[in-house]
């Protein structure tokens, strides 16, 4: 049985059709990449699945529950966690406390939340940063902390929104190791939005491509890289016409 199923999802913002007729499903244990040019509707799709936006029409089934009309916190409690692309860290929560907030979803006990958060930080190799404020960290470290907080909610599935955006190659290595740890060691199903292609292509079992709100392609990374529709979306129609010979 599929862990996540999305059927004919539509999302309009007034006249703008941000998501149109999107359907796909994820098996338990998969790691799926979601790519597409800017404005393709990737983050909107995440927001719809995670319950932050009400969907216009369509259905979302997670782990056998119809979550189409669920609020964000209800979706999270069912075991579908997410991270955010832009994180503005202004608060006075330390790294440890941020992860504890996630852990508190499954327990009322402070000591249990704390010991679990410490364990997660150790697994994420962030334990030497536990007493820092988020605003004192690099963007890369901040993103790994938000991933750790999401893992604190003990999810079955994690939606990662651009965790490698704007990072240098070393930091991308570290993020990639973290993603592998989440997927492989913690056995969490992962769906990630990413613009850093080397990361998506390396870690994903399967890639879904969106363009202008529609799903234009889906398949394993190698097939996707050679798909003319995908190349057209990224590089334009003219490029495909001029390089027709090389592409086939």
């Amino acid at each position: 049985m599929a862990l996540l199923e999305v059927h004919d999802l539509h999302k309009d913002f007034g006249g703008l059709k941000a998501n149109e007729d999107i359907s796909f499903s994820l098996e338990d244990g998969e790691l799926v990449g979601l790519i597409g040019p800017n404005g393709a509707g990737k983050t909107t799709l995440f927001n719809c699945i995670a319950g932050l936006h009400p969907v216009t029409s369509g259905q979302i089934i997670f782990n056998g529950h119809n979550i189409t009309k669920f609020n964000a916190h209800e979706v999270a409690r069912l075991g579908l966690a997410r991270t955010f692309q832009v994180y503005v860290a202004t608060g006075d929560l330390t790294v440890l406390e941020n992860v504890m907030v996630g852990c508190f979803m499954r327990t009322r006990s402070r000591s249990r939340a704390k010991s679990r958060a410490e364990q997660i930080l150790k697994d994420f190799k962030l334990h030497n940063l536990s007493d820092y404020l988020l605003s004192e960290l690099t963007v890369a470290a901040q993103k790994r902390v938000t991933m750790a907080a999401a893992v604190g909610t003990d999810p079955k599935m994690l939606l990662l929104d651009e965790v490698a955006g704007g990072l240098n190659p070393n930091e991308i290595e570290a993020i990639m190791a973290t993603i592998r740890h989440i997927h492989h060691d913690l056995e969490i199903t992962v769906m990630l939005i990413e613009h850093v292609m080397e990361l998506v292509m390396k870690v994903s079992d399967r890639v879904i491509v969106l363009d202008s709100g529609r799903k234009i392609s889906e398949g394993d990374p190698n097939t996707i890289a050679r798909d003319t529709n995908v190349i057209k979306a990224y590089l334009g129609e003219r490029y495909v016409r001029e390089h027709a010979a090389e592409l086939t």
Partner: protein
Amino acid sequence: MEALKNAFDFSDFPRIDLTIAALAALFLLTFPVFPHSSFAMATMIQFLMFSLYGMGWNTIGGYGGQVDLGKAQYVGIGAFTTSVMLIRWNVPFWVSMPMGMFFAVIWSFIIGYPLFRLKGHYFAIATIATSLVLKDIFEVWNFVGAARGLEISPIKFKPPDFLHLIFREDIYYYYVILGFFFLGIMYVNWFRRSRLGFQLRSIKDNEDIARSLGINVHWAKIKTYAIATAFVSLVGSFHACYIKNIEPEDTMSLDISILIALMAMLGGAGSLWGPIIGASILIPLKSYLKEWLGAQAGLVGIDLIIYGAIIMLVSAVEPRGIWGIVEKVRRRKRR
């Protein structure tokens, strides 16, 4: 059990804080023994009352970041419940005080539910409005004495009456409110490290992220608003027995609401000691401004000007108040 342990656990504060806190507690416990004027005693009782108001405000306003400028309505509910029950039915304070809390919390749910759909300034303005409307209702409601208010006549009682909290000497009131003060600190110390406390701090940071971490943001705010309300209503009940003469115009005025918020904002919103620090500065200042500058020099209203200046100063220099500055300096030293 764990909750009780956490309430007494101050181990995350540096030793210097705890030393200062212990000395302050010792001073508060022994203050009435030293020779003092009745003015000083009245100021100390005010200080303890406003510390408690501030602690209550701090749960929703400080840890949760929801600026609430309507706390006076709950002072009124507490004060009038206790007064009405005492005057009409001779109900002891220890019964009427929880009843007042109960009514206040019910009222806080009724207005909190729609109000927390609003954010930021809109929320603050809406709290002011509800508070003023309730004040106006009380001013025309004969059952609670309307605009004349209610007067508790001490003649009926034989002070010191611990059951009804009617005393002739202020020292009794002092120790009663001091007891509540210590309980309040314990409660907030538990709260700030509880699940709800963490949820509130996460909400203050970023509501979307809080939601995605499984927090029911709306409900967490309403719950905490009720906690803040319970604090304020308790002190309101005490206020009724202490002052013995309450009118909506005094107990439920906008000044009170703003002063309550100011305690925590000046001292440090979202910190345990903040409201106490704020009250220790503002209450003597308030007494001085009202009694001396206001009455004698004829500068009526100067206190309001100074409160306004403090609000502007805090929000411009350090939104987290005096305690925010202390923490900033400490952080810099550690690195």
